[in-house]
């Protein structure tokens, strides 16, 4: 790119010897200066290229700083919601326990990711975990399907698992997240996808710098019955009286659907928090990098400027002394 700019301006490119050994260690794309022969044989050293680079890096720094502030304010808004929704899934886990190692025929992996990028590695982590769960649950007579929420996971999973994707949902955060929206979503998923176990993969928000990939398992009522009859972790479920409804199965069906929508709500909120937090730290490191780059460019710029002044002085003085002596 620098070469094209030079050619356009009709200048000859000749590398300067002195600054090169220092900058070559850093990054090669920096082409600090170039000399060219003026019409009268005077040599100029142009700092235009460095100045252009400095301007663009400064703009990048401003943009990433602004993005970080925006992400911080969005995080504050979603964080309170996510904190408040944490009590929602605990009663279900207290009642039905947590059986991620349950052995079922039809698994559905619900991967939650973000729509926008520039948020660090959280989406790749979610996709890797989803693929891991797929691998874990692969076997004879077993099938695993994906339900994808968010553009980023869609882009990654569509490449190699296209035939296993059942449903893709994007633009989740267009309107502020609410329980109604998520329950409609959960309804859609439950209607269209056959499942024995739903595994929801998301990033749980611990703090602004720590996001833990988590998988929550929601079992279908038939599997709950099967597990409770066979004893083990869900064995005490039989001891619970079921009030209302005609059959126990009906209540368990409602329970499974309610559990899924509650767990999804919490998962979506936590993932949104993680996304904003990851974006904050990504933009923060980006602005810090831009600042470092700007410092290095400023040093090069000053050195070049001083070298050109020195060259001019030397020429003037040597010219003057040639006239005298």
């Amino acid at each position, binding site marked *: 790119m620098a070469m094209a700019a030079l050619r356009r301006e009709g200048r000859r490119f000749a590398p300067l010897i002195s600054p090169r050994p220092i900058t070559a260690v850093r990054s090669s794309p920096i082409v600090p200066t170039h000399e060219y022969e003026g019409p009268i044989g005077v040599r100029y050293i142009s700092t235009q290229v460095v100045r252009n680079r400095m301007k663009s890096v400064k703009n990048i720094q401003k943009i990433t*700083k602004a993005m*970080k502030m925006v992400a*911080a304010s969005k995080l504050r808004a979603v964080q309170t*919601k996510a*904190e*408040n*929704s*944490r*009590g*929602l*899934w*605990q*009663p*279900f*886990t*207290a*009642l039905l*326990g*947590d*059986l*991620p*190692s349950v052995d079922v025929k039809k698994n559905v992996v619900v991967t939650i990711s973000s729509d926008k990028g520039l948020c660090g590695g959280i989406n790749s982590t979610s996709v*890797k*975990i989803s693929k*891991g769960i797929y*691998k*874990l649950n692969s076997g004879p007579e077993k099938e695993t399907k994906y339900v994808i929420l968010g553009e980023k996971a869609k882009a990654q999973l569509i490449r190699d698992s296209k035939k296993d994707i059942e449903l893709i949902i994007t633009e989740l955060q267009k309107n502020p997240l609410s*329980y109604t929206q998520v*329950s409609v979503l959960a309804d859609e998923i439950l209607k269209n996808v056959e499942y024995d176990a739903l595994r929801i*993969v998301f990033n*749980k*928000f*611990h*703090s*602004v*710098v720590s996001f*833990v*990939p*988590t*998988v*929550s*398992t929601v079992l279908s009522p038939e599997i709950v019955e099967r597990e409770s009859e066979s004893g083990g972790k869900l064995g*005490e479920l039989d*001891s*619970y*009286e*079921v*009030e*209302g*409804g005609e059959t126990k199965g009906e*209540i368990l069906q*409602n*329970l499974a659907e*309610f559990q899924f929508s*509650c767990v999804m*709500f919490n998962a979506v909120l936590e993932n949104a928090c993680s996304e904003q937090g990851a974006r*904050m*730290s990504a933009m*923060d490191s980006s602005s810090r990098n831009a600042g470092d780059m700007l410092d290095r460019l400023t040093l090069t710029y000053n050195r070049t400027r001083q070298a050109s002044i020195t060259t001019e002085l030397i020429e003037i003085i040597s010219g003057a002394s040639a006239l005298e002596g």
Partner: protein
Amino acid sequence: MLRRASMLLACRPILAARARPFSTDLPAAPSADATFTEAWTKVIPNMDPPKTPLSFMQPRPPTPSSIPSKLTVNFVLPYASELATKEVDMVIVPATTGQMGILPGHVATIAELKPGVLSVHEGSEMTKYFVSSGFVFIHANSFADIIAVEAVPLDRLDVNLVQKGLAEFTSKLSSATTDLEKAEAQIGIDVHSALNSALTG
């Protein structure tokens, strides 16, 4: 100088957040599902296994041998935890089979809720909420988990709007053609008549 000041201001909130963990997050109980982690490390050795909800929950106390004196209630909504491990004397919930009173030592039950009034009795004071619907789990160790989709204290309800809503849904039911519309109108009528009786009764 201004840049450095703004950098300091930017850095400080991050440091503060790092030092102070989530105040509402429960301490991680070490019980993770061992079979899952083992199976994971066998198939995918390069990655850490994902965490499961069990590791984020505090384990519940086991069933005591004698009936405890107080009932511990967790009343949660999607956007808030109304009551979190609060010790009360009695809770009356609007189950689908009618108003159900829950006292300490109640048999373990799973009940679905219908729109109605939920009242929490603590000593001499009583708090009433109108809940839309949800579930209640009563565990053998006198823990009650009430999960509702929407719950409002009764003084926040407007009588006129309730009457208007009831009339609106009754007319919708009479003009409904498809089963879906009839079901929706019926739900509206149920909720509004429950609201009505909650406010008057």
